[in-house]
């Protein structure tokens, strides 16, 4: 992919982000932060590539360490978001 195609995806995603985030209800802003935290750990992809690669030992260990950090975030972020969202309940109608 050339740079311009990647840039196009990025710019369009910024627009999508802008509209999607404004439509998030303010009551869920804390879960929003927790879940954005979890998904930004998709950087684990880069960590996995580094950890799986041969050729440079240092790079491999840096990659493995990054896998640990990103995994804390992925599992922790999604779990804490799920825990919060489970608490939001509607009024019981009688």
């Amino acid at each position, binding site marked *: 992919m050339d740079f311009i195609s990647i840039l196009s995806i990025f710019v369009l995603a910024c627009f999508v982000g802008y509209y999607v985030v*404004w439509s998030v209800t303010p009551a869920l802003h804390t879960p929003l932060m927790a879940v954005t935290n979890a*998904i930004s750990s998709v950087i684990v992809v880069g960590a996995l590539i580094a950890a799986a690669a041969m050729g440079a030992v240092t790079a491999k260990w840096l990659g493995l360490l990054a896998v640990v950090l990103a995994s804390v975030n992925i599992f922790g972020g999604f779990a804490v978001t799920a825990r919060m969202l489970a608490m939001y309940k509607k009024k019981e109608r009688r």
Partner: protein
Amino acid sequence: MHGAALPSWVALAYLLAGGCFILALRGLSSPESSRRGNRIGMAGMAIAVATTLLYYHPRPSGENPFKLLNMGTAAEILGAIAIGAAIGIVTARRIAMTAMPQLVAAFHSLVGMAAVLVAAAAYLNPDAFGIAVAGQIHQVSRIEMSLGAAIGAITFSGSVIAFLKLNGNMSGKPILLPARHVINLGTLAVILGLIAYFVTDQSAWVFFTLTALAFLIGFLLIIPIGGADMPVVVSMLNSYSGWAAAAMGFTLQNTAMIITGALVGSSGAILSYIMCRAMNRSFVSVIAGGFGGDAVAGGAAGAIDRPFKRGSAEDAAFLMSQAEQVIIVPGYGMAVAQAQHALREMADLLKKEGVSVKYAIHPVAGRMPGHMNVLLAEANVPYDEVFELEDINSEFARTDVAFVIGANDVTNPAAKTDKSSPIYGMPVLDVEKAKTVLFIKRSMGGAGYAGVDNELFYRDNTMMLLADAKKMVEEIVKALG
């Protein structure tokens, strides 16, 4: 043109993961759809990770020797994931909801550090990432990876400071270095200069110096910011962690990372804007720092004794049980006093008496965006009884009792009338328009974080309930029961 083209199925899988993340955020438009959204997000992450592991799996005649994954490596990677998962899940289960801002700050720092590590790994082994020819890293990739490393480093050290301030390990008071603006701008300029120089010279010292300086600037940027502004800082660092992921996405030409980075980046930016607007502060003035410590001692001007009405728990219970509608205005002080469960009990008793009970939330009622809503949800307050400032402000005039607990500045009418007040212009809840205002406060001394006296205390329709928030609510519950 740079980088090795990915097979279509890999590229499509990453695109699918990116789409899942968009849907995860979309789900948060209402609590009902949010839980499914979160599951879609998890699925997206699983797709991204599985695709990466499969694509970098050993194949019979390795067309690319760097992409051979042997069983030992696979075990190491799975071990690393397992360690991270265990730490993450245990933390997520144990954390108190009041400590959510610290947790989020800590998580941000991990994303930042991971970005730095990935950038460093890409620098040390560019062939594995397909961003180099004969050891020469593509110039575009050099900019992308150095930006990723720099933003990641700022996110890391900034989040660590934010964590220490929020967790109370470090005073919330702003630490002001002399000539800090010159130091900060100078450091920033040097970082940008080094990134530019890195394009022409890929020596190790350039990459590592700029990363080290970025760690330093992240630290310098956050220490002058006061504890009261931490909601903005946490949102801002959220945004940075997104931009760091996006920069690394450019390096790896990975659509999942680019889409996610853009989403998270915009999300943090919007939340920072919302927080600034709620405090009537400009983003620049927050970043410049120096405002608001932990608790400013009441100024001499506010120390003059003024008459006020004092009430008891019984008075409060009587007034509320006779009311048609009660609006509860909770602030962070309520959470500190752990009064939310007693408060919900009180609301339940009132509802049994036929009183309509609503909650009014100011955007900065908690320590991070939406924090108060989570704290109320944890105390089993139904979310459809909880309203945002702009949705409920007009209702105070039609309300019999406004019950203010643990909030102060966000109810101060001076923000609307007194041009000399430090909080002038900040949107506030119009509690004084209610027939009666019940205001729980530990004592008459001391003021909110802005150090401003609240004229609401001395109004004819205000009754001060001077006690610990939790004790007072428990006594009201007793009086109602």
